[in-house]
């Protein structure tokens, strides 16, 4: 793939991801899951959620927002680390002419 194409595609991804943020200034950007549970309420008004997440039960309440973002960062970090580690090895291997 040409370098220009790659950059254009990356730019497209960034635009698609962030344009809504600037277009819809009043939107809350809550999760679509929350919206999902609102619909459950609508179509099945008698339903009560019968289980709560394990961690919330242990903590006796919701996970603090900051800690949650920490956990999400850890998840992202683990993933990026693995991808980058192997990609780095592949790139270096090709540079030394041992790849293929």
């Amino acid at each position, binding site marked *: 793939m040409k370098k220009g194409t790659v950059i254009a595609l990356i730019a497209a991804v960034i635009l698609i*991801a962030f344009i809504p943020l600037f277009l819809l200034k009043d939107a809350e950007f809550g999760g*679509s899951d929350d919206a*999902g549970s609102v*619909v459950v309420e609508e*179509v099945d008004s008698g339903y009560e959620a019968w289980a709560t*997440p*394990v961690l919330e039960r242990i903590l006796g309440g919701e996970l603090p927002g900051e800690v949650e973002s920490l956990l999400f960062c850890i998840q992202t970090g683990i993933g990026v680390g*693995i*991808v980058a580690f192997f990609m780095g090895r592949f790139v270096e291997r*090709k540079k030394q002419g041992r790849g293929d």
Partner: protein
Amino acid sequence: MTKQQKHRVLASAVLILTLGVAQNVNAMHIMEGYLPGGFCIAWGVICLPFLWMGFRSIRKSLNENRRVLPLLAMAGAFIFVISSLKIPSVTGSCSHMTGTGLGALLFGPGAVSILGLIVLLFQAILLAHGGLTTLGANVFSMAVAGPFVSYGIYRLCQKGGVNKRLAVFLAAAFGDLFTYCVTAFQLAIAHHSDVSVGGAFAKFLAVFAPTQIPLAVIEGILTVLIIAALETYARPELRAAGFLKEER
């Protein structure tokens, strides 16, 4: 600034922004306790054969050639990264991608069910995202149904002689979208006491689908990019995984 520095600044800006935006707890997956017990068990049982198949397929490809291990790790890590990024969408709510298309294309849909299960367990236990009772249903939608659609679309495109990059894009994007259709279906058959099943399905779909369409496009593009990168730098591994045909 050199070009490389600019790229780095851009990449870190994207990372910071994305993580900064990701404030909301629940973005996708059926939440803990939101399916009646019978449905939880049923979806779990439906997943079992797929997980067994996935376990065997992973063991088989590793036995045949240890070289695929880095690719397998990368496919799993890709799901990890992509499903942790919650992205704002045109409907004013956030959702995240599934990342399962890549693994399905490289290793077949069976193997992804195991990778997806690991990610969903992590999120259900630590992040209160999805849930243990709804694990079966979520595994089915994200790690079974979506990857199978991705794989099917890719195969069809190959037979039809569609451009390979386009085929990868379509496979990843529609697999992602299909996951949410399945989630809507799973919720609808469990919750329709006040309206018909079809009506409930339409309502759930209306919540999930429009939010997901732009994200499915992003997932398609990212999958194309990573496959292009692998084709440049990791041809021996791709051949070992059977993604590229033997050239010798």
